[in-house]
Structures are given as C-alpha cells and as structure tokens.
C-alpha cells in the first residue's frame, strides 16, 4: 500500500513537471503558487508514504563512525545535547544513532546539555531511545545523565579541568563519585571521546575552542546543515568527524544498519527525512532546469 502511494505521488510530480516543461517551452511563465504546490507534494508525499534512498557514508561521517567503532569496550563517551525542540527534527536522529552505536559497542555514556530549553530532550532521549532498545543497561554503570547547567562557555571552561565541580551529581541527585562510570573521571580530558550535537551557540564550535583544543580530547560533532560549513575548517585536525544536517544523520544511520543488522529495523528518522528532503531538492533542480530551458528557448525565438 505505501508503495502504491509513493508511486502515485511520484507519478503526479513527474507528470506535473512534464506539463510545466511543455508550458514553459511554449513561453508561458509558471506562477509561484504552482511551485508552492509542487514543494508541498514533494515534501508531504514521502512523509505519508516513506521512501528511503541508499546512503553511503562520506569520509567526514565515516571517520567518526570508525573512531567510535574502534574504541575499546568500556570507553567513556560524553554526549552533549546542545539544542532545543525547534532544532530537534534535524539533529535528534544523530543523537539517537550515535548513542545506539556507543551502547552497542559497550561504551559508557555521560549525557549532558548546555541549553536550558533542551532539558526535556535529554529526558525523552533516554526514555524513548536508550531504555527500550537496551533493556539490560544500568543507570550509573552504563550511562549517566548529569543534566543541564547554565553558563554556556563558562560551563565548558570549568569542566575542561574539573567536571564534578560543575556537575557534582546526576539529575536524580546521586553523587557522581558514587557512580562506577564517573569514579575515574576528573575532567573532560578523561573522556575517550566527546560528542556535541546541536547547531547554535553554545555548540560544536565552543566545544572545540574551549574543550577540544585546550584539553586535547577527541571531539566529534553533529550539527544543523546551516552550521556545517562553519565546522569544516576544524576538520580533520580538531574534529574527528562531522555529521552535517539530515544527510549526515542518514549516512550514519545507514552505516550503523549496515554493520549492525539489528538496527536495520529500528526507526531511522534521518533516512526517513532524506526522502522528502531529496524529493524537494529534485523538484527544485527540475524547476531550475525548466526555467533555463524556457529562458534559452525564449532567447532563440526572439532572435529568429
């Protein structure tokens, strides 16, 4: 049934574009509203009838994946969720995929956040992703949630030398010194990897400047597409890898599903969103091509 739906929508879009092409070649301009309808259909159809495309991890993503994959079991990874609900659709898939990957490999995760508006996300990530998929893991031993602390870069400045000064307890009030994960962790330098996921400020860039560089800790980031170009200058020296936008998430998810088939059937929001994303891109590119064909056609007609 979904297959039929998507075939139908693709057909509608295809025929529509063809109709537009013919119209344009005859010299009739396309109205804005028509373009709007096309975008709406291109985005809505693949959400209703999910389509997924094959994704291959590009080097920036693959390097981070391989790094996590090659850490010995029992390594401690700090995952910082630096975003709010508005940004979540784009970057939450990265948090899910990377957390799953770490836990599968037997790494321990410390969750934290720098955004006041992101506190609820920390909770729901744990409730909805960690616990259902990994029934056997134990809080305090396999993961710990230290929550949010106000202070932006100031927080980073402190935890790079003394983690427990900023986070003496986890969100439940358990002293970190009494948890097996945190017993040996004094500062950010003691983590085997830090993952910052977000797209605003404070975020990936601040982690690199305030923690990665002074503390000499490997850092991997997942950022919104708009922020990604600003992160490229830090790769590969200061960053292990970058997941940029939904595409980055999708690449990571497909790599994860490829290496660990048990995840092939979990929800892959990144790959799921790539459907509408790709279709919308294709429609825009088709419009550009049609616009240019019409333009050249018009020029020729005028000349003769």
């Amino acid at each position: 049934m979904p297959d039929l739906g998507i075939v139908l929508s693709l057909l509608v879009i295809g025929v529509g574009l063809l109709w537009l092409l013919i119209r344009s070649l005859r010299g009739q301009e396309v109205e804005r509203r028509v373009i709007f309808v096309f975008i709406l259909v291109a985005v809505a159809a693949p959400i209703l009838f999910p389509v997924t495309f094959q994704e291959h991890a590009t080097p920036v993503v693959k390097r981070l994946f391989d790094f996590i994959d090659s850490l010995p079991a029992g390594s401690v990874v700090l995952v910082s969720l630096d975003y709010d609900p508005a940004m979540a659709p784009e970057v939450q898939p990265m948090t899910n995929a990377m957390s799953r990957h770490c836990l599968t490999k037997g790494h321990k995760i410390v969750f934290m956040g720098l955004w006041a508006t992101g506190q609820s996300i920390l909770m729901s990530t744990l409730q909805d992703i960690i616990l259902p998929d990994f029934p056997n893991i134990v809080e305090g031993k396999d993961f710990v949630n230290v929550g949010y602390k106000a202070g932006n870069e100031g927080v980073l400045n402190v935890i790079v030398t003394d983690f427990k000064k900023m986070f003496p307890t986890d969100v439940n009030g358990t002293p970190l010194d009494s948890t097996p994960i945190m017993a040996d962790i004094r500062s950010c330098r003691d983590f085997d990897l830090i993952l910052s996921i977000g797209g605003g400020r404070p975020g990936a860039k601040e982690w690199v400047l305030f923690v990665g560089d002074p503390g000499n800790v490997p850092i991997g980031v997942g950022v919104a597409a708009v922020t990604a170009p600003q992160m490229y200058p830090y790769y590969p020296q200061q960053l292990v890898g970058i997941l940029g936008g939904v595409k980055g998430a999708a690449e990571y998810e497909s790599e994860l599903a490829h290496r660990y088939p048990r995840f092939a059937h979990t929800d892959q929001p990144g790959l799921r969103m790539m459907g509408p994303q790709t279709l919308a891109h294709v429609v825009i590119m088709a419009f550009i091509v049609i616009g240019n064909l019409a333009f050249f056609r018009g020029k020729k007609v005028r000349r003769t």
Partner: protein
Amino acid sequence: MRRLIPLAITFVVGTVLIVSVFTPPLENIERTFTLFFDIIAVFAFFLGGGNLLRVHISKLRRRKQDWGFSVVTIVGFLGMLMIGLFKLGGSGNIAAPVDETGSLFYIIFDAVLVPLQSTMYSLLAFFVASASYRAFRAKNREATLLLIAAFVILLGRTPFGTMVSGWIPEWLSIAQIPNLAIWIMNSPNLAGQRAILIGIGLGVISMSLRLILGIERSYLGDDNA
C-alpha cells in the same frame, strides 16, 4: 547649540570607546555603555508600545477596514502585558522568573508563539524554491556561475550526486559531485566570504569615523549643510 551638543556627545562617547580598547583601566566601560543602552531601550518601549496601541486604537475608532483584527492585537498585547508584569497564573511566587515552566506566561509562549514562529520560519522552504526558479537563469556569465555553483551543491546534498558521478575514476575523485561540492564550499566560497568580510570591516571603520567626527549627520536633522 541644539546641533552642537549631540555632535559633541557622539564624538566623546565614540572616542572613549575606541581608546578603551587600548587602555586597561577603561576596559569595563564597554560593559557599562552596553548596560546604558539596554536601559534606554526599555524607556524607548513606552514610545514603541504606545505607538502600537495608538495605531490600532485609531483604526478601531475610525472603524477602518479590518478594525476587528486591531481589537485582537490590542487585547493580545495588553493581556500578555498584564500576565507578565503581574506574573499572573504562575506558581504565585513573585520572585520566580516570569517565564518559569508552568507559568501562564510560559504556557502562552509555548502554545501560541512557538507554533507561529516555526510555521513562519518554515515558509522559507517555499520561498527558497520560488526564488531559485526565478533567479537561477543563465542570463550572463555571473548568473551562470551562480547557477552552476548552486546546482552542484544541491546535487551534492542528494544521493543522486554520488550516482551521477560514481563512474569518475579515483584519481579524479575531486570531480565527483559530493567532493566537488565540498571543494566549492572550502575554496572559492571561502575566498569570496573573506573578501566580503574584509570589505565590511573597512566599511564599518569608515562609516564610524564619519559619524564620530560629525561628517555624517543626516540622522540628526542636518542635510550635510
């Protein structure tokens, strides 16, 4: 006099701030002046908010077209003002921040402003499409480059980028669309950005000097006489 005093104020304040960059004992003056600005902005709000009310009340009085919507705006504005200033419907703790979770102020923000903001923001998706349809035409050399760069990047962000150029051999991997997209972002794009940024820096210096030295005074009601 009416003109001289403002010009003198601008000159002194601007000069002090420039000097403070090089003078450690003046370092904090920047923070102080920023505080002043924030305080002035609050006072100015009497003028802004008052203007908003005046415009809509006069629409209402004269029963101008769409005056009904003006009523909605006035009610929304005053309602939110009351709720926020008197911290109505919250935990009842007057010392709590106005936007603490669970307060009426926060609930309205969450239920009304958040969906409106994100929907308005998402309109961009439609406008990005209509703008690219219109703007990306190979009218001349400049427009053609604009078009090609945008197209390569667009293609590079979809799985088709890999598909279309997968046949290109490894030694020419730079020509594969995804790599080419990254190269454009990191090289010509970087060059253009840098030239723009340096230009902006110089533009700001020159304009600031014109303002501080009183050469530019159109904002003060003097048509460069």
